[in-house]
């Protein structure tokens, strides 16, 4: 049986987009003949000559270039070597790409691929999850796929969308997460998915934390609890309806994210649920984020900096008693 990884799905989506749409090109550091720091563009430069281009170490100019090309009708995909380096191109993303359509009625269809999230030994500058930063700015779509299938279909959708998309890939999932085949059907990227049905509590999460949450839910199943797990898939737009429907079933909510704790996805989800679904809640909604320090380098520190199946399980046990 062959299988395909999360990373291969991302590569496959780009290959297909290059194949089917002559407006698509890829630009980023080492994405050309080298195939990218994570090999997400492996062989693409050879298969699509001239359309997969190495960039200088110039994140601001990379995004600016993509904006100009997008205005002219192209569909650029920009690979940031790590999400953390996108802060050097942030101005062009949030002030130029994000505002273009509102200001001028000209769409800005570009995708910024961000290898996000922590890995062991990654340290403060190769581990960050920046979805909350980009989601705060009007005009950006922020996708956070947590499965191989979503990585594939959502990246294809991101390329097709007429708006700038921040595509948050999780480095931890790149090689580990596998599926048997590429999907043929796709749930639209702006819909959340109930990955595991349950009735005792809802965990809303996304990206790598989906798998920690599923593991926690499996653990609680041993104690007889049925935990529903909702995968947000995109954090902007955010599918409040699916979350509310789940909370209506379970009455309890835990929101889990690997990002820094102040603000962000967990706060946004809770604020929406309490504003619109206050009466559905049987207990105070809870959240779990990474700790409020830079992401530490040492595996022992890193392992307690972010939520894990075990801290999620503990949080669920607490929530079930509230």
């Amino acid at each position, binding site marked *: 049986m062959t299988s395909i990884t999360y990373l291969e799905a991302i590569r496959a989506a780009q290959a297909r987009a290059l194949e089917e749409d002559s407006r698509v*090109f890829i630009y980023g550091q080492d994405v050309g003949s080298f195939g990218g720091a994570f090999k997400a563009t492996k062989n693409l430069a050879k298969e699509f000559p001239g*359309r997969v281009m190495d*960039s*200088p170490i*110039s*994140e*601001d*100019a*990379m*995004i*600016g*270039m*993509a*904006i*100009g*090309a*997008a*205005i*002219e*009708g*192209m569909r*650029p995909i920009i690979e940031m070597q790590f999400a953390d380096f996108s802060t050097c191109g942030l*101005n*062009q993303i949030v*002030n*130029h790409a*994000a*505002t*273009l*359509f*509102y*200001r*001028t*009625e*000209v*769409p*800005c*269809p570009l995708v910024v691929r961000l290898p996000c999230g922590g890995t062991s030994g990654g340290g403060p500058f190769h581990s960050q999850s920046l979805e909350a930063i980009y989601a705060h700015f*009007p*005009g950006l*779509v922020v996708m956070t796929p947590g499965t191989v299938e979503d990585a594939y279909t959502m990246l294809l959708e991101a390329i097709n*969308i*007429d*708006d700038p998309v921040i595509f948050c890939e999780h480095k931890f999932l790149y090689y580990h997460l596998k599926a048997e085949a590429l999907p043929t059907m796709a749930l*639209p990227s*702006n819909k959340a998915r109930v990955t595991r049905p349950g009735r005792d509590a809802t965990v809303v999460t996304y990206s790598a934390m989906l798998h920690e949450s599923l593991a926690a839910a499996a653990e609680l199943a041993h104690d007889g609890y049925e935990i529903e797990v909702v995968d947000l898939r995109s954090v902007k*737009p*955010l*599918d*409040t*309806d699916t979350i509310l429907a789940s909370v209506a079933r379970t009455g309890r909510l835990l929101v889990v994210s690997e990002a820094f704790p102040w603000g962000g996805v967990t706060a946004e989800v809770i604020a929406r649920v309490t504003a619109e679904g206050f009466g559905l809640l049987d207990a105070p909604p809870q959240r779990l984020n990474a700790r409020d320090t830079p992401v530490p380098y040492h595996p022992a520190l890193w392992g307690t900096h972010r939520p894990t199946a075990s801290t999620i399980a503990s949080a669920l046990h607490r929530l079930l008693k509230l």
Partner: protein
Amino acid sequence: MNCKSITTGSTHELDGTLFCQAYRYMLTARLLEEKLAALKRSGKIVGGVFLGRGQEALSVALGIHLRKGDVYAPLIRDQAGRLAFGEGMLDALRTYLGSALGSMRGRDGNIHRGRPREGYFAMISHLGAMVSAVSGALIARRFRGETGIVGATCIGDGGTSTGSFHEGLNLAAIEKLPLVVVVANNQYAYSTPNSRQFACDNLVDRAIGYGITGHRVIGNDLANCLEVLQKAVAAARAGAGPQLVVADLLRLIGHADHDDASYITEAQKQSPLGRDCMIVAQQFLLEKNWMSQAELDSWQKEIEVEIEATTTRVLREPAPDPQEESWIPFATSHLHSESL
């Protein structure tokens, strides 16, 4: 050998028709901006008014050498270039006055305007950002196999200190794009003098470090501006890669409406830098006998009439209606749902 030599304009035959045409855009820009200043003083314009007084010759010389199909990203002092590139004064007045019918529909204002679909980019405020954006447009054209086109943008002495400017120019150099970047060194960035902005002799010294061609130009001398910009634009168009054009001049007005520019020294104002490009150009065309004073006077009348008429028209146009406003930042329709 990538590092191209630095050229400065040498005198050869000037095209009188082009000169007069350029002068007319300059005059239009000058008069239109005077109107804008008046509209600001009378409270009709809200927010900043940024004028290009003293920089019209340089600005027009770029705009007039561009063609339909080229890409142009003007900056804050480029009213003359915008007109020469084909922007009617309607867009300028509508954007400043916030007309719902303007290209920015009241969503953005003053010099933050353009029609990107027509190759006329709408600047963002963050200086330096347009260099890479124009480069991206040129890469798109290259993908489509279009040749013989040029992309151009302008920046001030202050803007050259941004990382964005550096990254954009370097990218364009690597890609050998047909890009013209005009640096208007008006000696100040807001109040900050060159001495606090850079330490090289002349900003054109940056060209060699990017491996591109540098040009110097006398920024308030239309004849010189037309000649150098013609050369630079033609070189870019012919495939010689990015061209950096550095002009010396003064802005003859404050940074924006509220600034009296008292920081500009008397010595600078009295120096050749302080010459008003309108007067220099007018004397030149009168001397050359390309036009008479009477013809110039009638141009002025015509332009004034057009400005008045357009202003009156725009002042009657509707403001954007917040109740009708969609408040949608996305182009993709299925992302619009309120619940998302």
